[in-house]
C-alpha cells in the first residue's frame, strides 16, 4: 500500500526526487490536464468555420463536426505525446462521454419543450382546480378573439387518473406480491412455478391496447352474468374499475418481477436464523423476509405506478372520456390525464380555433410528466428510507 502510493506520487512531486535534474525513467510525459479543453475549443472553432463556409451555419452540422474532430484530434494528440495505450484510453473515454451526452439530448429537449410550451397553460387561473364543464367552442373562440384567459382545467382528469391508478394498484399489488412470494418461498422450481414465470413473461409483452380490450371484454361478461342472475339491471361496462382491471393486467407482471428479484436477494441465512428459533414459515416471510426486502418492493411498486399512470389506450377504451369530475369508480365514465391530452389534441373543443385546446394539452402533459417524475423520486426516497439500517458502530 505505502510503496505503491509513493511511486504514484513521485512524478507529480519532483521535489522528492533524489536528484532534481534526473528524470524518472518510469514516469511518462503527461499531457497537461487542460488538453481536452483546448482540443474541444479548437474543434468547435474549426467546425464553425467549416459550417460558415460550406453550409448556412447549420447547428447540427457544427455539433457533429465538432464531435468527430474532437474525437480524432484528441486521439492523435494523445498518441503522439503519450503513447498508444493512453490514446486508446482517451478515445474510449470520449466515446463514452459522447454517448452519454447523446442520450441526454432527447430527454433534456423533451423536458425543455414541454416545460416551455406547457407553462403558459399551467399558470392559467383555475387550470388545476376546474374541470371542462361549460367549456365550449364559443368560450374558446372568445378567449382567442378577445384575449381573455383560456377556460377549463384538468381536475377531473387528475381525479380520474388518481382513482384508476390507485384501484389498479389495489388489485395488482396483493396479487403480484403473493405470486412472487409463492415463486420465491414455496415453489421450489416445480412445473407450476415455471408456468407462472413463463406467463408473467408473456404478460410483460402484452400491448396495452390489448389489455384495454381484455378489460372491456372481462367486465362485459361479468356484468352480463350478474344481469342474467338478476342482481343488477345495468350492463354498461365503461367505468373506472374496468380501466383499473385493464391497467392491472399491465401492472401485475411488473410487480411480480421486481418483487421476485427483491425477495431472491434476501440472504437465505436470515430465513434459516428465523427457522432455527422455531419461527413458522409464514411468520418468517412476513416478519423477516418482507421487511428486509420492503425498500425494493415499495420502490418497484412505485415505478410500476409511474408506468401505468401514463397509459392512454387501455383507459380510453375502458373508461371513456367526460368533462366533469367523477369520483365513483363503479359508475359512469372517467377521464384520465393521458386521455385528456389525447382528446385535446385530436378533437379540439373548437375545431377552427384549436389554440386553447393545444395549450391545455401541453399544460396537462407538463403535469403528467411532473407526476411521473415525482413517482420516480418517491421510489428513490422509499428505497432509501426503508433500506435495512447499517452502521452505528
Amino acid at each position: 500500500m505505502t510503496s505503491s502510493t509513493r511511486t504514484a506520487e513521485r512524478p507529480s512531486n519532483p521535489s522528492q526526487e533524489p536528484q532534481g535534474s534526473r528524470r524518472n525513467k518510469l514516469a511518462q510525459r503527461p499531457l497537461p490536464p487542460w488538453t481536452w479543453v483546448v482540443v474541444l475549443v479548437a474543434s468547435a472553432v474549426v467546425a464553425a468555420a467549416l459550417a460558415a463556409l460550406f453550409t448556412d451555419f447549420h447547428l447540427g452540422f457544427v455539433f457533429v463536426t465538432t464531435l468527430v474532430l474532437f474525437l480524432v484530434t484528441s486521439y492523435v494528440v494523445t498518441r503522439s505525446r503519450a503513447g498508444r495505450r493512453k490514446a486508446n484510453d482517451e478515445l474510449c473515454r470520449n466515446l463514452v462521454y459522447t454517448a452519454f451526452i447523446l442520450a441526454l439530448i432527447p430527454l433534456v429537449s423533451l423536458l425543455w419543450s414541454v416545460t416551455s410550451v406547457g407553462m403558459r397553460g399551467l399558470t392559467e387561473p383555475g387550470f388545476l382546480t376546474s374541470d371542462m364543464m361549460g367549456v365550449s367552442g364559443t368560450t374558446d373562440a372568445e378567449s382567442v378573439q378577445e384575449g381573455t384567459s383560456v377556460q377549463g382545467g384538468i381536475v377531473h382528469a387528475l381525479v380520474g387518473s388518481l382513482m384508476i391508478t390507485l384501484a389498479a394498484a389495489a388489485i395488482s399489488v396483493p396479487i403480484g406480491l403473493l405470486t412472487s412470494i409463492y415463486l420465491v418461498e414455496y415453489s421450489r422450481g416445480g412445473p407450476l412455478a415455471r408456468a407462472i414465470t413463463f406467463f408473467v413473461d408473456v404478460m410483460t409483452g402484452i400491448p396495452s391496447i390489448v389489455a384495454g380490450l381484455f378489460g372491456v371484454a372481462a367486465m362485459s361478461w361479468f356484468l352480463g352474468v350478474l344481469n342474467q342472475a338478476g342482481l343488477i339491471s345495468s350492463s354498461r361496462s365503461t367505468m373506472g374499475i374496468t380501466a383499473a382491471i385493464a391497467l392491472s393486467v399491465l401492472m401485475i407482471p411488473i410487480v411480480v418481477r421486481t418483487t421476485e428479484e427483491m425477495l431472491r436477494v434476501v440472504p437465505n441465512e436470515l430465513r434459516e436464523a428465523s427457522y432455527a428459533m422455531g419461527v413458522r414459515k409464514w411468520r418468517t416471510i412476513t416478519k423477516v423476509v418482507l421487511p428486509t426486502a420492503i425498500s425494493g418492493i415499495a420502490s418497484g411498486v412505485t415505478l410500476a405506478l409511474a408506468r401505468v399512470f401514463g397509459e392512454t389506450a387501455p383507459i380510453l377504451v375502458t373508461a371513456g372520456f367526460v368533462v366533469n369530475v367523477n369520483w365513483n369508480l363503479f359508475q359512469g365514465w372517467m377521464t384520465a390525464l393521458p386521455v385528456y391530452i389525447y382528446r385535446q389534441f385530436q378533437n379540439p373543443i373548437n375545431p377552427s380555433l384549436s389554440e386553447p385546446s393545444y395549450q391545455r394539452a401541453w399544460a396537462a402533459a407538463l403535469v403528467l410528466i411532473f407526476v411521473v417524475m415525482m413517482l420516480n423520486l418517491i421510489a428513490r426516497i422509499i428505497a432509501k428510507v426503508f433500506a435495512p439500517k447499517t452502521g452505528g458502530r
Partner: protein
Amino acid sequence: MSKSIQAIDMNIYYGSFRAVEGVSIDIDSRSVTALIGPSGCGKTTFLRSINRMHEVLPYASVEGQLLLDGDDIYGSGVDPVTVRTMIGMVFQKPNPFPTMSIRENVLAGYKLNGTRLSRSDADSIVERSLSSANLWNEVKDRLDKPGSGLSGGQQQRLCIARTIAVKPDVILMDEPCSALDPISTLAVEDLISELKEEYTVVIVTHNMQQAARVSERTAFFNIAGTGKPGKLIEYAETSTIFNNPSEKSTEDYVSGRFG
C-alpha cells in the same frame, strides 16, 4: 432444562444421494460435543438434522431416529417448529436481522412468534441473554442501534444471545468461530464453556485445537471418497480422540497426516 440427544442409525439424504450413513451417537445433557472431520464428510448435515433444519432444503430427507430425552423428533405428528424452539442453532456466518436493532435482535425469537412481552420482562431477557453471551457491557449503551453495526465477533455473540434468549434445551453451533479473529474466537470459546452449565452444546469445527479446548467428547466423521456417504468413524472422550484414537484414520486426521 438441558436435554440429552440419542441418534439411532440415522441416514440423511439429499434427493437420492445419501450424504450421511448409519450415524448412532449418544450425547449427554450439559456437555459440549465437538464434531470434526474433513470438508464434505457430513458433520454439518448431521448437525442440521438434529433440529430438523436439514429439511428446510428442498428434497432433503432423513431416516432413522433422533431421540431428545427419549422422544423421537422425527416421529409422526412432531412439528419441526416445536423441535426448533427446543434446539437452537448458531450459524457459521453471523446473521443478525438487518432490519432490527440489537435489542430487537435479542428478542427476535419472541417478536417473530408474536409473543407479547411486558417492558420489564423484555428488559430482563435482553440483559440476561446479552450478559450470558458476554456482550452486555459492550452494547448496553446502544441497544437501539442496528445489530449489523457490530463487529463480526460481536455479531456472532449477538446471534448466540438471540439463541439463548428463547431458552432452548440444546444449542447447535456450526463452525461458529470460522469467520472470527483469535480474540473473538476466545470470547466465544469462553462462552461455550459457560453455556454447558445450562445447555447441551454440539459444535461443528474445523479447528482441532478448538475441539480439544472446548469439548468433552469428540466425534470424528469421515468420507470414503467423493460421492460416497459420510460416516461416523469414532466417538469418544476428547482426550482419547486426540491422544489415543482406536481408528487409524482418526489418528491420521488429528495428527495432520490426513489424505
